[in-house]
């Protein structure tokens, strides 16, 4: 069993297991710290920086991201301060400038007290949190997509920006994206994810008819857990 330790957050004592990430502990204790690039099923990546807190260290306060910070006994944190508010606002302004049309970004900006950005506005929509890339790699285990280039040209893309051959069309990236940047459409028994240039045939239930999921995805699951050939012939509802 892991050791239980005590940390101090905003003057309050909080007990938690050693080695947990601070942000997870805060969430479990209903202490709000904004986060964008964090998801509990994906290793922390620490890129959006919006989850910053202050940690007391040798009588000073140090600003650190909380999603990738493993806690240790006796640490003292502050989740609100003038400095944090200011830094989060600047981060939000930058994000807002990049993705001025993304509803989720605008909402979080407002929540953190940012109505406008003083930087030139673009309407990208992707905040480069990397969650789609990480989810595809770490949760689905497919790694169909990745990053491209760097600096201002950095973006998420399928390799060579052509059809993502490995993509099984599961839609995890669509689900996890905090800004709804990745679009997916199921129509005429075909699933399309235009950003990765994929179009996949859907499998229908042999008994009641409607689409179950992309054939490729079902095949992937079937191989992974060694299910019988005909396992996905019928949908969940039509199973005996």
């Amino acid at each position, binding site marked *: 069993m892991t050791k239980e330790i005590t940390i101090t957050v905003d003057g309050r004592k909080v007990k938690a297991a050693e080695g947990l990430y601070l942000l997870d502990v805060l969430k479990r204790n209903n202490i709000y710290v904004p986060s964008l690039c964090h998801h509990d099923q994906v290793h922390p990546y620490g890129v959006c920086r919006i989850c910053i807190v202050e940690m007391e260290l040798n009588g000073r306060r140090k600003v650190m991201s909380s999603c990738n910070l493993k806690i240790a006994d006796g640490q003292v944190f502050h989740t609100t301060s003038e400095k944090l508010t200011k830094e989060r606002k600047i981060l939000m302004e930058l994000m807002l400038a990049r993705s001025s049309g993304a509803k989720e970004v605008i909402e979080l900006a407002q929540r953190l007290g940012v109505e406008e950005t003083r930087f030139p506005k673009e309407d990208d929509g992707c905040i480069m949190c990397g969650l789609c*890339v990480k989810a595809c*790699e770490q949760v689905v285990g497919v*790694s*169909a*997509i*990745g*990053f*491209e*280039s*760097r600096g201002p040209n950095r973006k998420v*893309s*399928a*390799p*060579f920006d052509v059809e*993502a*051959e*490995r993509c099984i069309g599961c839609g995890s990236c669509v689900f996890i994206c905090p800004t709804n940047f990745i679009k997916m459409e199921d129509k005429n028994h075909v699933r399309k994810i235009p950003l990765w240039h994929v179009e996949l045939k859907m499998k229908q239930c042999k008994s009641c008819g409607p689409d179950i999921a992309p054939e490729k995805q079902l095949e992937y699951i079937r191989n992974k857990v060694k299910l019988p050939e005909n396992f996905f012939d019928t949908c969940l509802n039509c199973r005996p």
Partner: protein
Amino acid sequence: MDNAKVDKIVEKHKKDSCQLIGILQDVQKVFNYLPKSALDHLAKKLDIPESQVYNVATFFKAFSLNPRGKHIVHVCMGTACHVRGAKRIMEDVARELSIPEAGGNTKDMEHTVEQVNCVGACALGPVIIYDGEYHGSMTPEKTLKLFKK
């Protein structure tokens, strides 16, 4: 046949995917650029996702995913070279070879001209690197002569 060349490079690096950058450099040396087919094959050989190879290949400016000419010319546009007239050199080269000022390939695929930002030889500026060879204190005239060799 191209795949065999990639295989050889991968063997040389003991199939170690941690050496991806070195491998890509070697692949580029063979093809003058990084062809998609070679990278796809490389990913299979190293047993890593294509997305990872693509990520690294697009991250570094030293790699090119587009075909390049026989001779590679770098025009330094770093601050020091810039103030000593690199911009004029670039303009003249672009006009003479009919390529965009940002750089590019000549029609006959003899040359590829690329801009770089400081190659660490500022005192010699403006600097031109022609097929890996450094030329300092360049003028537009001297540069154009290099192309006529």
